[in-house]
């Protein structure tokens, strides 16, 4: 409640200042005035990788094609250390102009403290609302629980099960569409002496995603939002059942021995090298799949299916677990007219650029087609096209302390040192303390 009240208050405040001094609002309809500006960018992507390439390219294009007086500094930190870096910078009021951050609870802290620019407001001013993918916008607003948008997407991912086609064939399995079929497939694989599942138990989030999968399919797409809002307790029987499901799989040996020591990376290689049949991960996994040195299964060896449906009326087959990965936020104090012009260029062009350069969707509209798209990239685009609804991941709506507990305790759950009920209770306990 406090969060919402603050957001309204802030919106009111910004609105009143705008009313009081209307001349401050710049007019973004004409030609770029080529203002002198140096922006600092802090990200978790290397310059020569993934989003790092895109960000640097778009800055370069902007400088070359539109505003020669524009310069940028690009810095990268490890994703593990992003929060520490941002906390340190925020403490001395020195956040970068543009920075990568985590959507959901971490961003909410910055929003509540008035550190980040209200993107909805900026977008209205510069008139680029049409360039945002409405699905991504809804997703991000939902994550921060605000009416306005406070961050920019730089990715649009679907998640689901990747499977090894050869192993499926070997065990005589079809791609499952319902949850019961899914369980049968797991059993069949296991009977055939194949390890049915693998996950990043040491990275933890890979395992909690599996609880989420079952929870959503049996209790509805918005179950975790409800739990976060206090409408449903975390100890709800459906959530307990979902946690128990994971424990049951581990108990049956579906994950092999010592799954808590396997990281996402190893789990991915296990799938590709045929040591495990099914692996839950997001569409970013394509970058491993398309790398020949990593993927012995080859161009058509791995397939994808969405989380099988338990009850179509609770959660439909076209609703996917979706996320925008790490998002971009803008420092509120450093935002000025020149940043606005850059932002305008960024939003107008990033969608096309990402599609042309990498064949990926970033949460912006695009009207070009990638030149030569490989099979895996195409597969992901098709799945994104199929989606009608999205739901977030397990910890998305949890404040950091709850989220930490939810992740840490998934390991004892997998080890059988904790039951589903104890696991959910431990989450509820932290929730109650807040």
């Amino acid at each position: 409640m406090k969060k919402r009240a603050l957001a309204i208050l802030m919106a009111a405040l910004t609105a009143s200042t705008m009313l009081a001094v209307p001349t401050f609002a710049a007019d973004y309809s004409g030609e770029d005035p080529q203002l002198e500006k140096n922006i600092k960018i802090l990200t978790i992507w290397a310059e020569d990788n993934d989003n790092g390439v895109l960000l640097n390219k778009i800055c370069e294009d902007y400088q070359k094609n539109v505003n020669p007086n524009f310069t940028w500094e690009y810095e990268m930190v490890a994703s593990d250390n992003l929060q520490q870096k941002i906390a340190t910078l925020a403490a001395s009021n020195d956040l970068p102009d543009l920075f990568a951050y985590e959507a959901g609870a971490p961003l909410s802290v910055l929003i509540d403290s008035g550190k980040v620019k209200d993107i909805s407001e900026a977008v209205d001013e510069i008139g680029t609302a049409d360039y945002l993918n409405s699905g991504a916008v809804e997703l991000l607003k939902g994550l921060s629980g605000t009416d306005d948008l406070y961050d920019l997407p730089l990715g649009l991912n679907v998640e689901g099960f990747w499977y090894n086609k050869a192993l499926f064939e070997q065990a005589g399995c079809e791609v499952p569409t319902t949850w019961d079929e899914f369980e049968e497939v797991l059993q069949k694989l296991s009977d055939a002496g194949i390890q049915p599942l693998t996950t990043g138990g040491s990275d933890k989030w890979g395992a909690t995603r599996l609880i989420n999968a079952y929870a959503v399919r049996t209790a509805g797409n918005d179950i975790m939002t409800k739990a976060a809002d206090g409408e449903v307790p975390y100890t709800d029987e459906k959530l307990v059942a979902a946690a128990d499901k994971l424990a049951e799989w581990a108990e049956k040996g579906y994950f092999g021995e010592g799954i808590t020591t396997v990281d996402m990376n190893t789990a991915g290689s296990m799938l590709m090298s045929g040591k495990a049949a099914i692996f839950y991960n997001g569409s970013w996994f394509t970058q491993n799949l398309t790398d020949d040195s990593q993927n012995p299964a080859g161009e058509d060896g791995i397939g994808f299916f969405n989380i099988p449906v338990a009850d179509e009326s609770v959660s439909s087959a076209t609703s996917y677990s979706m996320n925008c990965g790490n998002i971009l936020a803008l420092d509120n104090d450093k935002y000025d007219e020149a940043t606005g012009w850059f932002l305008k260029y960024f939003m107008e062009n990033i969608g096309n650029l990402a599609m042309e350069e990498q064949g990926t969707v970033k949460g912006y509209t695009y009207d070009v087609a990638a030149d030569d798209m490989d099979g895996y990239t195409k597969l992901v685009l098709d799945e994104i096209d199929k989606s009608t609804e999205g739901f977030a991941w397990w910890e998305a709506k949890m404040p950091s302390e709850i989220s930490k507990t939810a992740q840490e305790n998934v390991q004892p759950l997998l080890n059988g040192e904790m039951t589903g009920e104890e696991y959910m209770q431990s989450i509820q306990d932290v929730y109650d303390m807040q």
Partner: protein
Amino acid sequence: MKKVKAAFRGIVIFLLCMIEIYPLFWMLTASFKKQAEWSEKPAYALNDGFYFQNYSDAWTRGHMSTFFKNSLITTLVALVFIVFFSVTVGFAVTKMKWKFRNAVAQYFRFGIMIPVAIALIPLFQIYSKTNMLNTRTCLIITYIAFGLSLSIYLVQGYLRSFPDDIMEAAVIDGCGIYRLMWHIVTPLMKNSIVTVLVLQFFFKWNDLLFSMTFISDSALKTVQTGLLYFSDEFGSKNWGAIFASVSMSVFPLLLLYMALNKKLMEGMTAGAVKG
């Protein structure tokens, strides 16, 4: 009987050496592995082939040439000061006669006990207010300050057993304090200086927390930050390249250390004063 005993001792020593060398050997083989080898074969298996791509990735993507230079500069400058300060302070608080020497020694010793992470935010603000962020100087100063406590403590340990009669003889010969310090005490402390030097060198060389927090300019970053280029947003890590860059940053130094170590050890044994 004696032979059996000797053989047994030989085997124990040999095993010990194996246990200690194995990681280096393993690291080297790991640095030549393709990503897929990590899950297809046990980790102790030898590399299938020599996948040099890892090294070229480490060199170009990890910006090794720049980062190596930066690490070398900051570490070496910091080391010079650490050694200088630890010898002077160590000597002053152990051997010299003055009122507050124990208090000062204790004050420095506190530093060993401070959890580093807690100083990050205040330090950042200090550097930010003095406009020192993003400079080599701030990194060097931090390294010096956080290296002092331990080094002084080590030097003290050696100095406590340092024979007073040598100093006395020197003073009777007419040595002043400064000459005593540089011509008598320091040469005899080679052993402890080497320990401080080597230990601090690798502590600083392996630092990630400080350099990541205080330095944002890629032209000034240090070697360890280069490793960051091989892990991505979703926890995917390119281990081959990581070990390639670790190998590149460690092996030249190890060779240097071995060469240096032998010389210094010889010098030390030759000049050592046996009680």
